[in-house]
């Protein structure tokens, strides 16, 4: 057991920090610490420009192999990159989905043509992706997908019809990957296809969803005979579920330590306020601040165990608890922020409804325990996969 990084890794850390220090300034000074969860709709053009700057420094897609312009960075190096990126106040990554989801999926399941067509623009920070999984009727029950894809027998082109929802930043993206039913008679996870679809076309309509924060980073995406070329299905028709689930397996948690640095920034701010306004003398607040501090450290060492786990991509016990842990912790932090601020928490500082950071934190963290698998779904998964308890019975309807 060893908690320290090697000298070579520390040198890599220095390289990352130096580059960020030299580049995250001047025209990019304003976007430091911006564009994270709850703030993703801000500074979109500037953050796209930042992706191109990152690409010029070879700092996009660092986990990809050299052949596709990556650095083939080790897990440790990826962790270090995320830590230094967060430490420097690097903005929310517009290229996040292409870098960590689309790319690895195509590398594992895509054809050579698909790789050649789609990987370089992601790597160069010029093509932005969003994901199309959830539907109004397929949330926790993802396999209940109803969006259809029908292939034209002569041209081979696919036509997609249906609705996706909770698609982050679809209105600022160029492509979406869509899980759609190719076999009309199929049900559940059978008969699905995984499609790469351009968003800028007549068959696609994007409508933002205004959230309780008054902002809109999620969207509904409507497909009405949206066109997708015959070559733009990943894997065979019917393999969509396998491809989609493989994609979830690529998340080895390298970004978790970076995420925790943002959490630390939030906690530090709450501590600063508590010390200034006297809330730090309230015994209950003291306990909760200590609890938050301990929880964040717990997350760090849970992550380190997770990252030190097997390379086979199988989910370890500590990986299975990760989402449930951080989402609950973060939601509690939002409430703690409000309790530390007291009545001051109510006051809107500017605009008709321009929330400050902690107000956004409080409201938006209610989403944390819902998206990406609700806490209830997480508990089902832990009980079934880690503890071997029986599966939930399914309803009888189709």
């Amino acid at each position, binding site marked *: *057991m060893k908690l320290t990084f090697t000298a070579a890794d520390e040198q890599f850390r220095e390289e990352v920090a130096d580059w960020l220090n030299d580049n995250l300034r001047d025209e990019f000074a304003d976007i430091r610490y911006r564009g994270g969860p709850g703030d993703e709709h801000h500074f979109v053009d500037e953050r796209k420009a930042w992706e191109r700057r990152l690409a010029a420094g070879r700092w996009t897609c660092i986990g990809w192999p050299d052949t596709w312009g990556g650095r083939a960075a080790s897990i440790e190096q990826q962790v270090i990159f995320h830590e230094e990126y967060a430490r420097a106040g690097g903005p929310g990554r517009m290229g996040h989905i292409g870098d960590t989801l689309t790319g690895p999926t195509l590398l594992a399941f895509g054809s050579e043509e698909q790789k050649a067509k789609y990987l370089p623009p992601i790597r160069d920070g010029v093509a932005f992706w969003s994901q199309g999984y959830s539907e109004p009727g397929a949330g926790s029950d993802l396999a209940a997908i109803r969006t259809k894809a029908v292939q034209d027998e002569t041209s081979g082109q696919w036509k997609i019809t249906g609705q996706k929802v909770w698609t982050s930043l679809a209105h600022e993206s160029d492509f979406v990957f869509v899980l759609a039913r190719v076999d009309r008679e199929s049900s559940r996870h059978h008969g699905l296809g995984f499609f790469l679809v351009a968003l800028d076309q007549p068959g696609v309509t994007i409508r933002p969803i205004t959230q309780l924060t008054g902002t809109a980073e999620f969207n509904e995406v409507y497909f009405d005979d949206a066109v997708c070329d015959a070559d733009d299905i990943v894997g065979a028709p019917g393999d969509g579920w396998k491809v989609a689930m493989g994609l979830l397996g690529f998340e080895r948690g390298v970004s978790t330590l970076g995420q925790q640095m943002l959490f630390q920034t939030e906690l530090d701010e709450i501590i600063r306020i508590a*010390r200034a306004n006297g809330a730090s003398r309230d015994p209950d607040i003291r306990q909760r601040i200590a609890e938050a501090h301990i929880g964040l*450290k717990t997350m760090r*060492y849970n992550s*380190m165990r997770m990252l030190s786990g097997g390379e086979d991509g199988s989910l370890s*016990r500590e990986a299975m608890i990760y989402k449930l*842990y951080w989402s609950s912790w973060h939601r509690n932090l939002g409430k703690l922020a409000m309790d530390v601020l007291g009545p001051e928490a109510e006051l809107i500082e500017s605009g008709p409804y321009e929330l400050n950071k902690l107000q956004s934190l409080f409201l938006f963290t209610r989403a944390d325990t819902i998206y990406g698998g609700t806490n209830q779904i997480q508990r089902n998964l*832990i009980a079934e996969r880690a503890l071997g308890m029986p599966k939930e019975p399914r309803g009888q309807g189709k």
Partner: protein
Amino acid sequence: MKFAFTDEQQMLRDTSQAFLADKSTSAAVRAACVSPEHHDAELWQSICEEMYWQGILIPEHVDGLGLGWVEMAIVLEAAGERLLTSPLFAVVQSTAALVGCPASEMRDLLLSSMATGNVMSLAMGYQAGGWDSVGVTANETSTTTVLSGEARFVPFGFAAAKLLVVARDASNTLTLWVVDPQQDGVFVEPTPTMDQTRPMATVRFERAAVSSDQLLATQADELVSDTLALSRILTVADQVGVAQASLDISVDFTKERKQFDRTIASFQAIKHKAADMMLKAESARSLLYYAACTADAWLAGEVDRDALHEAAYMASACASDAAFFNAGCGIQMHGGVGITEEYDIQLYFKRARATESYLGRPSEMREAIACQLLDGDVA
């Protein structure tokens, strides 16, 4: 960075668990709790001769294994899982204190004596003021030094061949002495406890005369406080074992127990409780091994005392909560039989309760963290 067991550590874990699954069975634990010695002397002998757990933290030059805190945590976690009722904790805690003492012939003699299996207990204190309040004084008379007062909650104190005694001297600093429980003025009384797997004693001193060759350390305030932190880490290991076993036996039970024509493990209300228990156990385990690594780093001079103490506070708060939560939920998952004497979950529940307040309540641990975050000058 590799926050995972080495092959050797994994092997130690496997052999420890296998040994205790065989020797520290439910029947064996229950028999030990009511035996006159309050433990199975034969089991202690095989621990000392076959497993050599008492020697893990003892340096090699005094006949120990010279291993580290991760190895110690692995063994004590396994001990918690099986409710091991033995003087192991007392011996390991005494070792931790002695290793921190200045080098002396007496210190090495005591360490090598423990390596052969002799039991020693640390009489640290606990007065009303808390775990760092020392109730024994060392006063110099014209001819000798005498110890007076009492030390409570001394683990396996009644079984100790030697007692390591913390006493406050006339200049209000702490000192550490080795005392023979048979010597004049020393009275050791077993104190029956609700959790019978971790028996305690109160040691009283009535003008017990001690000589300078019994003095192990002077100016020992830091030594005692560091030993307290290390003892918390040892206790955390036990709690992680209790948290894990409470989860395991309860889940196994719910997979067998049927109501409404299905196993109760198939009910979401039960599954979600189990999932929360696993989250608690794994989180406490992460902080345990972080704290164990920190103890090793502190001994190697790589981190300071503050890091050691902070790690101990955090791990203790987390593991105390985890053990009690899991054992409590475990009783609920067992239903009616959970509150019977026959099922083991009640033994885990009691052990979780005992360790929760031993060396400080979780709220005290959190308050210590709060002081560090909220009081004093801003850095």
